[in-house]
């Protein structure tokens, strides 16, 4: 791909962008949020048409005008934003458009068998007949991967495939990638997780502001160099400092929280100024706990105490009133009002602040506030009146974070706060979390990335199968966390692969 230009109304997404992929290589595409990575790949996969430039396949210039055409040329893509049909089963999703048929009829048996075969090859424990809407995002992501694999493409684009995955699943994915690579498939790999780049890719192309910056070999380029090419400056890495909060008052205490098999007798507390990491494998129940505390889902039993007072929380409204904020793990479904503009999304949880006499909204104050957060979090958007759904994934996440920062809660629960966020912004968010803690706020961070948990947490609570299996001091080892995360009292037989990769 050479000299690719692409502009959206109000946004120049790509300007003379360039990218080259060889057969049998894993080529990482790096750049900050909104650098244009997804846009470039959508052009390659026929979703968008380019404004200028040329796409060459095997040296021949080609026109790719539709996803179908891209597929026919052997180009497959896993989109960053999940593109699944929620009401269909996993198998139906994977083979949409290519259903096995017997005469005129769909052959569901073959469909499910073929799907099972793909799942088996991925070492994925999933029923082909399960409806995708009942799956967690991680599982949905795995379905997307299975779908992309089923096309047996020569070029496979993966746009942040691991954003929602845990370590075991990432390891599984990497095994698959290596297998494909050996078969001569060229793979474009987009991710904000720097360690993965080293582990999996052969070459790295870096983009900034829609432009091509450079291509370097992955093996012998230091991560710091790549990062500085991405952000145009060098980042300093703050080491974890654990403040002594033992004397600080307890801000949030959860006692004997229960709901079915998802949450079993969970109790813990967070002090003012403390960052509590909540670790666990996917499906451990961390999100469930957070949502139960926040009143988003009902709980069967359990007490929630805020600042020493027991509070009755039966809806998110109660929680917010009690000073609790919750950043959900699925921004598209639960975080962002995608049709509203950036400004109103930021103000969504604190609208009453901008209401003057007679219920009239003070839009200029709202504008100023939004601008402040756009600057503070470097949200890439043409203006604060841009529709939120038109932002790049990472910038959408920043908008949701801004919403909770503005709300100014004493207790903040961040569920996967850096999912899909670039290194530069990640560092900003870490700084921000630390600053919030310093201001005396109690913070719970749920993350599937152990390095992130280790880097941020003053204390680490670990969950497994709905139970809290232990609380570790900050700076513990990954091994210690993993031991607790797999401590299964129910002693359910576990597949070896999961153990090993864990």
């Amino acid at each position, binding site marked *: 791909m050479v000299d690719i230009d692409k502009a959206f109304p109000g946004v120049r997404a790509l300007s003379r962008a360039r990218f080259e992929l060889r057969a049998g290589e894993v080529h990482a595409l790096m750049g900050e949020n909104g650098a244009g990575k997804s846009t470039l790949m959508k052009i390659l996969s026929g979703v968008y048409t380019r404004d200028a430039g040329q796409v060459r396949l095997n040296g021949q210039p080609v026109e790719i005008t539709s996803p179908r055409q891209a597929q026919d040329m052997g180009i497959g893509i896993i989109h960053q934003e999940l593109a*699944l049909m929620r009401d*269909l089963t996993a198998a139906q999703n994977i083979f*949409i458009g290519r259903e096995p048929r017997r005469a*005129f009829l769909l052959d569901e048996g073959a469909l499910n068998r073929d799907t099972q075969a793909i799942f088996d090859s991925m070492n994925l424990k999933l029923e082909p*007949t399960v409806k995708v809407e009942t799956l967690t995002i991680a*599982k949905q992501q795995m379905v997307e991967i299975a779908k992309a694999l089923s096309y047996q493409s020569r070029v496979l684009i993966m746009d942040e495939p691991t954003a929602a995955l845990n370590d075991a699943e990432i390891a599984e994915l990497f095994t698959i990638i290596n297998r494909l690579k050996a078969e001569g498939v060229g793979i474009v790999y987009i991710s904000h997780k720097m360690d993965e780049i080293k582990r999996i890719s052969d070459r790295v192309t870096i983009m900034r502001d829609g432009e091509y910056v450079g291509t370097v070999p992955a093996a012998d380029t230091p991560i710091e160099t790549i990062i500085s090419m991405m952000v145009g400056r060098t980042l300093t890495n703050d080491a974890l400092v654990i403040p002594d909060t033992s004397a600080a008052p307890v801000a949030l205490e959860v006692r004997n929280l229960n709901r079915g098999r998802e949450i079993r007798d969970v109790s813990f507390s967070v002090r003012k100024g403390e960052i509590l990491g909540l670790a666990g494998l996917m499906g451990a129940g961390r999100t469930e706990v957070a949502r139960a505390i926040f009143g988003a889902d009902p709980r069967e039993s359990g007490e929630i105490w805020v600042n020493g007072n027991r509070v009755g929380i039966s809806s998110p409204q109660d929680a917010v009133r009690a000073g609790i904020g919750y950043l959900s793990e699925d921004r598209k479904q639960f975080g962002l009002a995608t049709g509203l503009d950036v400004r109103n999304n930021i103000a969504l949880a604190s609208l009453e602040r901008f209401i003057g006499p007679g219920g009239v909204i003070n839009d200029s104050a709202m504008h100023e506030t939004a601008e402040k957060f756009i600057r503070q979090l470097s949200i890439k958007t043409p203006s604060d009146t841009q529709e939120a759904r038109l932002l790049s994934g990472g910038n959408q996440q920043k908008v949701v974070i801004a919403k909770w920062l503005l709300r100014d809660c004493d207790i903040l629960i961040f569920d996967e706060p850096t999912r899909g966020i670039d290194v530069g912004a990640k560092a900003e968010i870490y700084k921000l979390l630390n600053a919030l803690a310093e201001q005396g706020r109690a913070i719970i961070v749920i993350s599937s990335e152990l390095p992130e948990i280790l880097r941020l947490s003053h204390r680490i609570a670990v969950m497994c199968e709905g139970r809290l299996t232990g609380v570790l001091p900050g700076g513990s080892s990954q091994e210690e966390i993993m031991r607790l995360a797999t401590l299964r009292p129910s002693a359910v037989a576990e597949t070896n692969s999961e153990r090993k990769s864990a």
Partner: protein
Amino acid sequence: MTDTTAPAAKSGVRISGAFHRLLAFSGLIALVVVFSIASPNFMQTQNVLAILQATSVNGVLAIAATLVIITGGIDLSVGTLMTFCAVITGVVLTNLGMPLPLGILASILAGTFCGLISGTIIAKLKVPPFIATLGMMLILKGLSLVISGTKPIYFNDTPGFNQIALGSAVGSIFPSLPVPNGVLILFLVAAIAAFVLSRTALGRYTFALGSNEEAVRLSGVNVDRWKIAVYATAGGICGVAGLLIASRLNSAQPALGQGYELDAIAAVVIGGTSLSGGRGTVVGTLIGALIISVLANGLRILSVAQEWQTVVTGSIIILAVYADILRRRTL
């Protein structure tokens, strides 16, 4: 999901699926029981057949609407399209004097063709379904009047015609069970539609479109073509409804049809199909249509004053759906 949860979840889904259908059904049963107790005339064979007969036209229209609604669209033209098809049949059979099979074919083809046009306007021109089918509703209403010369077309020259809805193939075999053919046709259409939805590519894409059209497009599927196919199929089904109503009235009534779309859509929604698309069943729609006609018939049998019939119908529709929601929640 871990190994332990998987089977439990699976059977859970299956049970709740079956149970859920049972729930809408139990609303219907409750109505039937209440009316049977309230009036001895309600459960007479004749009245049951009358209810089924009264369901047939609305039921067939509702099945057409179900297909479209599952794609996340809407079809306001089902009522007037039915009439248009009936008028076309009238022209073919009475004005042109063609044989009966041609008339039947004409109705279904006319419906399919109009559905094709609606579908094309929606898929290719990107006109929202509400507007496209609203426009179609008016166009067809006008055309029916124009073609028929604003007069009913009678089928007196085609003796077998009113047997389509009123004859009883079942009754000629089992005289004690004179189920009118119209009712048979309703169930036949329902069976075919259910089969198409669950077992064919058309059905698969119907659900897929309603679930996430963009995802379907990104999967390289020719979204436009399938969408048009769904509207065309729905149109063909309206053609069947046109035959049913024309046969029942032994005439094509050109002014009838507007307002029928609301009853059809109501049956669909009461039957549990979501207006936002992606989910729905033909069985649910049938039950929805039956609830509507059982209510109407039962209240008439009880000689409830007409103004109160409306009030009661409105309340029971809300209650029936609410009961369904409640029980699903406490599952």
